């Protein structure tokens, strides 16, 4: 045997991984523990609560070596982590819904200061009307604040993506906070089979911690952080633009880094997740439906049934929502003649789903008209079933020959 035939990382068989059963919130907590953060700060809120409870238990049981701060509210949670991140710590928290709203002031500041904090959003619908259940409204509401936001489809993807998020956030070409979004209820409390990566393998994947000291406070290298900028005189305006352009560059760089990190993950652990946009059964598809998050499993089952019935339909799933993966999505949209987009939240300004609205911008770049429709379902814990997706497929199939409705279709309106 020559050295040329030795296994490369590409061909290496992934190490055997322990199989466990756990809910999405526990999977996120286990992912956090494997990524070895230095500090977490928490404030529980439904449906995120069991996630931070699992984190607290892992620390209490000695399975995770991190400092934990049980703060008095979410505004303090993120402020505490900003201080820790500025001191070079790897940091983590989780929140959702009203907790995210209460966190908004430091939330905006975090991306501006280029702090690579990882935060799970266990997505929850917006209030009011009162509801404590899942929906993407919370994460969608803050999609324009400069955080990288990725959405998970399965419990396994929650665990794996939570680990990858630290590597993406801390990459020197990115240096941005990352939200790992997991659907409240269906993913947070749904239990399924999960392969638990080995700690040594994760350590090798993460590599030696490489603090980017340009944002970290260090008594040996004193500097000012977050200077006063802006205004209309002196270097104020140009400094502010430099900061904002840097954030935008970090966001665009993250598209590449997200792909690289997912590829490395697939090689090391044998699990391949589409990093930006996933195509499912798009070969020969005349039209497609678009999904986000945990609804995708039922949608894939519906696509299989529709294909068996002879329908030429495929599925496009978005994983990375912020930054919006324009180029990757363009390639997928180029294949179809009609499109139905299913959102789990409401875009009040355009009277459609937010993902639909974003996709309209990409369709414009395609340079030809693709008839399309917005569907809104799964709000406030409502279910989106295989049956609902058959309705989406049937309505989308008719689009080329009938006028697209100006209103969104509310999938659970008559449930």
């Amino acid at each position, binding site marked *: 045997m020559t050295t040329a035939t030795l296994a490369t990382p590409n061909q290496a068989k992934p190490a055997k991984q322990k199989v466990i*059963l756990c809910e999405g919130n526990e999977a996120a907590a286990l992912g956090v523990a494997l990524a070895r953060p230095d500090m977490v700060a928490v404030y529980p809120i439904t449906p995120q609560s069991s996630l931070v409870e699992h984190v607290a238990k892992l620390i209490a049981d000695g399975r995770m070596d991190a400092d934990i701060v049980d703060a008095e509210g979410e505004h303090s949670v993120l402020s505490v982590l900003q201080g820790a991140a500025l001191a070079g710590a790897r940091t983590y928290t989780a929140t959702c819904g009203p907790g995210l709203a209460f966190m908004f002031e430091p939330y905006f500041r975090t991306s501006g200061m280029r702090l690579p904090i990882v935060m799970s959003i266990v997505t929850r619908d917006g209030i009011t009307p009162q509801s404590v259940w899942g929906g993407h409204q919370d994460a969608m509401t803050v999609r324009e604040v400069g955080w990288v936001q990725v959405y998970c489809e399965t419990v396994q993807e929650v665990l794996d993506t939570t680990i990858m998020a630290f590597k993406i956030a801390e990459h020197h070409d990115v240096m941005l906070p990352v939200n790992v979004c997991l659907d409240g209820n*269906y*993913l947070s*409390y749904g*239990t*399924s089979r999960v392969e638990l990566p080995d700690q040594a393998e994760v350590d090798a994947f993460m590599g030696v911690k490489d603090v980017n000291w340009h944002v970290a406070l260090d008594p040996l290298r004193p500097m000012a952080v977050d200077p006063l900028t802006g205004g209309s005189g002196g270097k104020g305006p140009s400094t502010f633009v430099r900061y904002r352009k840097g954030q935008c560059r970090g966001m665009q760089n993250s598209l590449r880094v997200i792909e690289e990190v997912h590829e490395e993950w697939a090689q090391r652990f044998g699990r391949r997740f589409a990093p930006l946009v996933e195509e499912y059964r798009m070969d020969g598809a005349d039209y497609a439906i678009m999904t986000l998050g945990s609804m995708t499993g*039922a949608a894939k089952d519906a696509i299989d049934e529709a294909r068996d019935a002879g329908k030429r339909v495929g599925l496009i799933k978005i994983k990375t929502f912020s930054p919006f993966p324009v180029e990757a999505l363009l390639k997928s949209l180029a294949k179809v003649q009609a499109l139905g987009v299913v959102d789990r939240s409401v875009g009040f300004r355009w009277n459609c789903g937010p993902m639909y609205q974003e996709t309209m911008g990409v369709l414009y770049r395609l340079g030809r008209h693709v008839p399309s429709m917005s569907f809104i379902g799964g709000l406030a*814990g409502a279910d989106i*079933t*295989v049956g609902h997706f058959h309705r989406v497929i049937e309505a989308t199939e008719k689009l080329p020959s009938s006028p697209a409705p100006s209103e969104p279709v509310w999938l659970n309106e008559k449930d």
Partner: protein
Amino acid sequence: MYEVRFHGRGGQGAVTAASMLASALLEEGKYAVSIPSFGFERRGAPVVSFLRCSDREIRQLTNIYTPDCLICVDPTLAKSVDIFSGLKPGGTLVQATHKPLAEVVIADTVGVVGLCDAIGIALEVFKRPITNTIMLGAFAKTTGVVSLEALKRSLEESDFRDAGLAQNLIALERGYNETTVHTIERRVAA
């Protein structure tokens, strides 16, 4: 795909039971997903939880509307909730009750019934009417979908809030041994 819907009241452990059953099925090399229904978790209020199992990966993370089997861990629930909604024709009911078959209300869709005096057993074992592990034993006896051994191993890995492992293992075994299984014969009119 085999789909189970659990019916219980908050505090009886219907959600935990679905998770323990999923874990036992995993032991046996199957894929299993369990999802609790979403309500305000109050003791005594009707709750449901769902479990899917399959030899293949399960993708849909949704509630269950047409179950193959119902596990009702509370004897009084059927008075206030339509537990039979959507049950597949010829489906299975595993019911906690001390009544004989003739006195149990059963929908036309039910083909197999497992009856277990789970409250009676629970009061003896736990001194409290917590029936979930007993009814897992009843489910194993009625359907054979999961083995008693796999359920035991699943319990051994669970964290119990209201009782110890030893008590729950006794409860599981008694649920299995003290369940009567009945096949419902329906004559089609000539």
